[in-house]
């Protein structure tokens, strides 16, 4: 049997079955005796993790059931050499430890770890993960606290003015944008990385004026030069330094080209210009340095107030969690780690390693190193593909994967070069493009280096299923002879044409339409165009679903909510009034505002939202619209109800939400629309981990290079940047070396990103791949992905419209003919009417539907006046009551001896005594003894003749049927009444059979004589329930049971009938 490699790195190209590899490795480990708990497997998404968990179990279960499957599995898991027995044992081991498996995303592992280390990390107890909804809230409060500091005002204004977005109006949004671009870079680096560079020398005002004068006094001999000079002086006068140095003669002089429009620039001009050029560069450079400084300081303040705000709210992003873990370095103490996580991490299986960020790596590194250095049998299994590193923008660093073999000596690298997913034509397209990518002329030299490097990582792709039919083409979109349609519109038309064609031939095929980014709402446009395509409408949706607002019926309901919240929102009001819902609510469109019905409707909706929550209200509204909508809309309405029901789980009780906030949530949340889940539109990023029968890639006509906001420079890609700063065009390349290197690095990275993106997009296709590029009259698209494609296939010329430019070998345009239509799964039948019968009689023993009540809850007809009950003064009264009851409980018969005040005070239960305080307690005791001395009580408590028993604080419980009356109180449901009778005296006949009984209830209220009658009425239901209970307990007829109230403070006994 072959032992597995302890340190193995798998380079897995797209679709080469890495999930399987992970699974096999997992099974091998467990089969060779490793405790599953000590295996940490991380992957890219929760969905992928779930899939691995499922497949592990499934494969071993299949092996138990089917000998063929077992033999196949044994090839990959040689440890299963004990065959059937071994499989069964492995299955048992796995099924019994499903709840212990550590298979999840890297984020979830970090969260779990951070939870166990919350104390050491200084995290707020009970913290949770910051979601989108709260993030906006916390961020805007951060912005408001940042901006409200007057010190910041000017700096902000300056920065906003400098930043590329110019003096755009929304401050919060701009800050948010800056935060996306520069925040992490500032947080993760030393200040020195941002504060590099020495200021440049510039002229003072007088010298500058002189220099400009000198230039102005030049008189060029050539007309062109003269015009340019005037322009240059104008630019200088306007302080437009950038324009000055990047155009005209100044530009040429700067790049040591001393001629302009064919004539040499006269030396007088050259020497007049030179100081000015230097000045201009100086100003621009200083501005850049200043901007870096300002950005740094702003992001620094933002970091402080933002992390404080998050900390106070007890909410942290995944990023924060990772950052904290890397910062506090809890991972370095492995003993501690093992203690807190309840198991050691002996084996690591890491998937999608190319997307690991430096921060994540710094958390993982100690464990990896430790495993690497361990003597024992601990292992690492790392899977990745640098070609699929799409997460550079989130800090993913593919260099970590590249350098891994070096870091882990003794490690073995295995390449999986067979694709189980893509058909041969698709792979031919992939191979064709990426094996020649370095030949394409990219933007410039260092970009070409990036391409070559990329190509070095590329290995020839082979299909594991050569027989799989497929089709791979590059084709052009149409043109609009009138020139009115944009490139985007035309390429959408093409996409629709292709998709409609495939969909009509292979209606069960999954089709993915991939775009680079959702610029110009192109995803929504494509979805819309497909849905409304005539005559072949294609049910399509955005991947992950669209927000529910894509349903007109849903929006009517949302309008009703908005209208209730903001009665002045006439758009919403009109929207509701013009719909079925408006008719149902009884509101008609009237522009005059004072409308009583409208007023009531709004108020009622607000009240119901508050009391019942959104789901209830939305559900009612939806019912009114059901008859007017089609099947899809009905589903959307139902999804809205479910959304309303579940959203409160994430955001706290939804009924505290303003409708406008609720609507925002709906707008933000994608809800999959199952009717259209076969055809989906998405960005390439989102397509990661997915595959489709056919893929249409459009949106290739975008520049590879895009001006960023911020840049970084890494001396070592696996270390934090040594230099970082804002982007300011290419003007300063020549003058600031650091700046130039940053630009180069960025350029390389962007080329790399673009190629990865293209690679991922292409390799999503199982059968067919269509790459749509615009038809162009010229060849000015070199710097775009479509230009790149054309260069590689050697078609770099103007492209006719509606043409297939290139076809992969072995393509079959009618691939779908053999496309096996999967059998429709049997759909569960529609549920008919379900009627659940009510019980015939209330079950006597299930206790289901039985209410409970205490006798005292019956008093006052079961009603309570809020102001009386909760004014805070009744507590002392309660204490008094309990103590007096306690004292009475100690007395069976009063044989004339009244206890002393002191003895009473000592005997009182501590809890209640504390409530009264020393003074109150004494008062209670005094009042109690006074009552005992009264003739009324003396008589009441004197032992009568005959066979009699007294029961103090007698507990009872009795079932009372629905509809039973206790005085004026009627029970609404079957109720178990249970409580205590203060004092019960039972009189027996000579045979010991109970004859009659007296019920006494002690009352400690202060009462006036005038109030006695009303008090009698108040307490009557309570006493009636005692009578009922006593009659059931002792079998005494009700008529033989007397009930009395004793007002202790008044020493008054009142019989209640």
């Amino acid at each position, binding site marked *: 049997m072959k032992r597995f490699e302890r340190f193995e790195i798998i380079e897995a190209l797209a679709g080469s079955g890495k999930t399987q590899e992970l699974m096999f490795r997992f099974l091998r480990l467990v089969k060779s005796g490793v405790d599953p708990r000590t295996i940490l497997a991380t992957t890219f998404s*929760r969905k992928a993790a*779930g899939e691995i968990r499922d497949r592990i*179990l*499934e494969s071993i*279960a*299949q092996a*138990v059931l089917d000998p063929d499957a077992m033999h196949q599995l044994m090839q990959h898991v040689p440890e299963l050499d004990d065959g059937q027995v071994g499989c069964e044992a492995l299955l048992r081991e796995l*099924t019994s430890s*499903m*709840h212990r*498996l550590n298979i999840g995303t890297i984020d979830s592992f970090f969260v779990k770890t951070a939870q166990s280390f919350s*104390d*050491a990390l200084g995290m707020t*107890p009970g913290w949770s993960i910051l979601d989108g909804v709260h993030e906006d809230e916390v961020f*805007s409060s951060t*912005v*408001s606290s940042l901006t409200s500091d007057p010190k*910041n*005002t000017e700096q902000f*204004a300056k920065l906003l003015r400098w930043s590329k977005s110019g*003096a755009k109006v*929304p401050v*919060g949004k701009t800050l948010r944008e800056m935060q996306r671009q520069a925040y992490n870079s500032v947080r993760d680096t030393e200040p020195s990385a941002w504060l590099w560079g020495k200021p440049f020398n510039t002229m003072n005002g007088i010298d500058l004026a002189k220099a400009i004068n000198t230039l102005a006094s030049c008189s060029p001999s050539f007309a062109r030069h003269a015009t340019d000079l005037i322009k240059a002086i104008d630019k200088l006068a*306007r302080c437009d330094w950038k324009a000055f140095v990047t155009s005209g003669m100044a530009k040429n002089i700067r790049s040591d080209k001393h001629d302009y429009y064919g004539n040499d620039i006269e030396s007088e001009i050259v020497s007049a210009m030179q100081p000015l050029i230097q000045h201009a560069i100086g100003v621009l450079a200083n501005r850049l340095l200043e901007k870096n400084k300002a950005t740094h300081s702003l992001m620094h303040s933002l970091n402080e107030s933002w992390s404080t705000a998050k900390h106070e709210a007890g909410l942290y992003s995944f990023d924060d969690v990772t950052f904290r873990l890397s910062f506090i370095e809890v991972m370095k103490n492995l*003993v*501690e780690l093992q203690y807190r*996580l*309840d198991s050691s991490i002996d084996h690591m299986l890491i998937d999608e390693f190319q997307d690991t960020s430096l921060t994540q790596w710094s958390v993982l590194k100690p464990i990896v190193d430790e495993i690497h250095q361990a003597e024992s049998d601990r292992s690492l299994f790392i899977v990745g593909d640098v070609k699929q590193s799409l997460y550079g923008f989130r800090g993913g660093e593919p260099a970590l994967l590249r350098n891994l073999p070096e870091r882990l000596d003794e490690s073995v690298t295995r390449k999986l070069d067979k694709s189980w997913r893509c058909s041969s034509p698709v792979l031919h397209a992939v191979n064709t493009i990426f094996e020649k990518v370095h030949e394409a002329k990219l933007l410039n030299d260092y970009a070409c280096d990036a391409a070559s490097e990329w190509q070095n990582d590329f290995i020839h792709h082979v299909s594991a299923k050569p027989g799989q039919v497929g089709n791979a083409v590059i084709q052009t979109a149409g043109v609009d002879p009138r020139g009115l349609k*944009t490139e985007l519109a035309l390429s959408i038309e093409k996409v629709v044409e292709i998709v409609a064609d495939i969909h009509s031939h292979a209606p069960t095929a999954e089709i993915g339409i991939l775009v680079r980014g959702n610029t110009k709402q192109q995803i929504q446009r494509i979805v819309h165009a497909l849905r409304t395509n005539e005559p072949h409408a294609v049910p399509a949706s955005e991947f992950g679903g669209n927000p529910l607002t894509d349903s*007109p019926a849903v929006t009517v309901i949302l309008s009703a909510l908005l209208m209730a919240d903001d009665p002045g*929102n006439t758009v919403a009001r009109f929207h509701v009034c*013009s719909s079925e819902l408006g008719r149902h609510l009884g509101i008609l469109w009237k*522009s005059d505002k004072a409308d009583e019905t409208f007023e009531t409707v709004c108020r009622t909706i607000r009240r119901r939202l*508050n009391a019942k929550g959104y789901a209830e209200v939305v559900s009612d509204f939806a019912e009114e619209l059901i008859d007017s*909508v089609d099947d899809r809309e009905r589903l959307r309405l139902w999804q809205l109800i479910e959304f309303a029901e579940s959203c409160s789980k994430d955001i*706290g009780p939804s*009924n*505290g939400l303003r409708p406008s906030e609720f609507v925002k949530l709906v707008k933000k949340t994608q809800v999959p629309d*199952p009717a259209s*889940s076969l055809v989906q539109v998405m960005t390439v990023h989102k397509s990661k981990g997915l595959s489709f029968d056919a893929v249409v890639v459009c949106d290739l006509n975008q520049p590879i290079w895009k001006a960023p906001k911020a840049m970084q420079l890494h001396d070592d890609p696996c270390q934090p940047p040594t230099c970082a700063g804002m982007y300011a065009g290419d003007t300063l390349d020549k003058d600031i070396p650091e700046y130039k290197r940053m630009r180069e690095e960025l350029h390389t990275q962007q080329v790399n990103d673009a190629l990865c993106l293209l690679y991922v997009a292409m390799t999503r296709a199982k059968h067919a791949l269509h790459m749509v590029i615009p038809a162009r009259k010229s060849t000015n698209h070199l710097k775009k992905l479509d230009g790149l494609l054309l260069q590689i296939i050697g078609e770099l010329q103007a492209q006719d419209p509606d043409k297939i430019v290139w076809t992969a070998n072995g393509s079959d345009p009618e691939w779908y003919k053999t496309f096996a239509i999967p059998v429709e799964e049997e759909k569960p039948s529609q549920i008919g009417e*379900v009627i659940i019968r*009510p*019980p*015939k009689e209330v079950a006597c*023993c299930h*206790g*289901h*539907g039985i209410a409970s009540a205490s006798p005292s809850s019956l008093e006052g007809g079961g*009603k*309570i006046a*809020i*102001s009386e009950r*909760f004014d805070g003064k009744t507590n002392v009264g309660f204490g008094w009551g309990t103590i007096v009851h306690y004292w009475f409980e100690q007395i069976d018969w009063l044989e004339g001896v009244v206890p002393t005040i002191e003895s009473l005070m000592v005997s009182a239960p*501590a809890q209640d005594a504390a409530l009264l305080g020393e003074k109150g307690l004494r008062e209670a005791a005094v009042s109690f003894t006074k009552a005992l001395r009264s003739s009324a009580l003396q008589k009441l408590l004197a032992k009568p003749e005959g066979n009699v028993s007294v029961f103090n604080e007698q*507990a009872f*419980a009795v*079932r009372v049927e629905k509809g039973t009356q206790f005085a004026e109180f009627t029970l609404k449901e079957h109720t178990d009444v*249970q409580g205590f009778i203060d004092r019960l005296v039972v009189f027996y006949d000579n045979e010991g059979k109970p004859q009659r009984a007296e019920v006494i209830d002690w009352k400690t209220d202060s009462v006036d004589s005038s109030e006695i009658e009303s008090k009698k009425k108040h307490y009557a239901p309570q006493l009636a329930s005692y009578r009922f209970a006593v009659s*059931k*307990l002792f079998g005494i007829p009700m008529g033989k049971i007397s009930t009395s109230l004793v007002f202790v403070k008044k020493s008054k006994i009142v019989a209640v009938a």
Partner: protein
Amino acid sequence: MNAIQRHFLGWDKPFLPAVAKWLQEHYLDGELASSSKVLVLVSGQEVARKLQNILVGNASANDNAIVPPAIKTTSQCLDRLIDASLQIADSITVQIATASVLREMAHEELYPIVGVRRPHDTDMVAWFALAKQVCSAFSTLSGGGVSSDKTTWPEHAEAVLTDSARQQFDTLHVVQQNLQTQLLKDGLSLLEPSRLLLLDDDKQIDAGEIEHVILVGATDLSGMAVQTVNKLREVGVSIDALVRAPETEQNSFDAHGCVKVSHWLDATIEIPDENIHVAGSPSSQSAAVIRQLDRISDKYTSDQIVIGSTDEKLIPIIQRHLSGHSIKSRFAGGKAAVEMPVVILLQALEKLIATKSFSSYASFIRHPDIAKMLKLKNNTLQALDDYSKQFVPEFVDEIAWQVPGRKIHNIELLITLHKQVFEMLHECNSIQHKRSDILSCAATIRTFLLAVYGGETLDKTDQKLVSLQKVFSIIDTFDATSEHVSEQLGLVDIPTIIHLLVSILEKATIPEYPNPESIETVGWLESMVVDAPCLIVVGMTADLVGGNNPGDVFFPDGLREALGLETVDRRLARDAHAVTAMQQMRNESGDLVWIVGRKNTEGDPLTPSPLLMCCEDAKVLAKRAKRLVVSIEREDPEVPKQFIPEQEGSGIPVPAPSDYMHDPVEKVSVTAIKDFIACPYRFWLKHVLKLRVKEEGGSELDPMLFGSLVHRAVELFGIDTSVRDSEEEQVIYKNVSSCLDEAVQEMFGETVSGAIRIQVELARVRIEEFAKHQAKSAQDGWRILCTEEKHKAKVEVNGTKIEVSGIIDRVDVHQDSGKIRVLDYKTGGPTANGAHYKKQDGMWIDLQLPLYRLLLPKIRKLDSYDKSDANVSLGYFRIGDQESKAGIDLLELPDQAHEGVGAFIDAVLSDIQRGQFGEVPTNPAPKYSDDFAWICQDNSIIDEFEGDN
């Protein structure tokens, strides 16, 4: 010491009725006094209630009442034995006192439990949160019968600890000691040490009246309960353990009747395959429930069916489906207290006082209970929106609404409202965000609540009353905070105290009134003891037993194991027994269905519970495993019956203008024309129906308002004849800049938010640009003749007149040539040419500037000027954010454009006048229409050409 008597009551019948029978036969013999000698210990509150119901029900069948025995949960068993002379502090008091004790401690002392970050001294919210965590650690320890002093622990337990854990427990112990000292000042004792005192080896326990203890189905007694039972045995109390299993299983239980963990972890649980169903999303799981109900509806009545869910998040979704099929249901767990209107109100108050933000004010007054008090009307809300939209207030304070210079519709309503609100808040002294002691904060909250709810009289079964009771009882406890604690706690504020109150309520629920016609839905713990014949369990995922308790930094499973606390394995063993018993009980008669969910509410994949994979036979197990991990990628959500009408409808129609009566349009403003050209339908919505979205503004100016501000600043400059002719850039800049400040004052009052202040600075940048170009214009000989000329002109179309009106921002004349230049200020958007005319297809898209020509004759100051086409130029004065977007930008179009403009104007005006608004909106939508997206059903996809601007 007498032995514990174990009694195996079997598991093929409902357990609790069997228990009741056993109790009645053995201890509750009808003697009144016998009950008081018996203490029945059960696993949970719900079981206690059920058992009592059964006892009462049985008696009732014989027309009797009972004297109920004490039925307590095992975790409460000790508490009734605690010396009555000890005054035990309640949990809220303890939490408050703990916070005060923690805060007193230095960072070094606290380091092991707070790490790098000690809460700030005044951050009481954080201290309370920390206190909660610490208190829960104490109670975990005492639940295991373990002290916080680790030196008293068994050796192997101490050995488990790491250095940092050791320090943690040292700190916890110090905290507990300090806490006890603190509480003793008020004569209070701490529950946990008092419990442990009872269990002290050298001490005898005083059992009081109790002679018999009966353990009912207590399969996982806590360490504390075991010790208590043993202590009671020492003093001669008899112990019976009633086990839910047949005699044959006696080796699977220990002497106390608890499950033997190792046995149950390996136990086989036979569940018939047909009882297990797999469903995907929560919605599908709910539909599967309905299917099951459909299947069994003939067999059972509503009271005989219970739906259990292992994930409580599923319950509302299941209930929603049930109600969609008109099936009544009730969640035994009740409604969360924090969802009750009174709690929502308190949180609104918290937010208002803490932030004083305008938006918190707006939501506070909208709370129905407040709105009712204030007699809030729609027009007040509208006025509030108007106000917010115009003034962008970030905060409210007592002098709000005092903005000079601008007129607000219905401002008097707002002033009244404001007075009312502040009077109310003043009355209960709550608006000053002042720190005071906890007692006065509590008093203030009480006053506030009484002001809102004091007038009401409520039924005792009313959920509202129950929620108020819960809230007030917490306030009562706050009220009872002793001086010592309050002093040490220091100053707090109302938001903090409300926060604390709400966090105490977090887990509280308000029970729903029982109804026999409802199907009960319950959580997992209750499912285990349900005795209804039909039980449907939903969920059953591996998360049920879970791994580590998340966030439990003090008790990893290894330590739990060593201390004898509840562990994952123990939970799993307990559940294994429960699943077996649940299944056994319904094997003969009854139905038990397991619906295994594959996805949670977030759509994430779930792993099935190991409990369903305990089959004896390997093949059966393999088949089961395969079935349970079946992949459910795509699923059709099912809509309940009630939401499926007989036939499909035709959809929501887009309202047609022809369905609405309106008079012919008599007036139109020049700026509205472009809306008509872009889309007549949306023009109808915007300018005929005059529909507006009035949302509260944010904390900064939107582009419109920003534009108005800049506009107003340059307008003020244009009015000031003393400087407006200046040719000096600096002079102009200075003047406009001060005009800007004046405009800010005038428009937004004295106090503006920080964001607006920044925006004002950004406006100043634009003004710099303006000054440059204005100076140039003056140097070129242009003089401002007049500004803000508001005029109308009548145009004859279709035989009637339509009035065209507009405000001309500014008219310049050239001092030498007498030429006229009509300028419109623009702070954004395209050039005059681009805005008016689409070159590609030669169409006018706006007529604003050409229409100004109609108004020129109305300007008196121009009377003496030549207003012929040749002498008048039209254009924008752009005040953009970049150099390229600033300056004077004249309308210069090809001749053919000018030729057609007159006819085009007539055509447009004629269409408007005749009400030709089309019946459907233009598609794709022009950009201005986003507000109308829902009415127009355009999915917010706007015309690509306009998308970029």
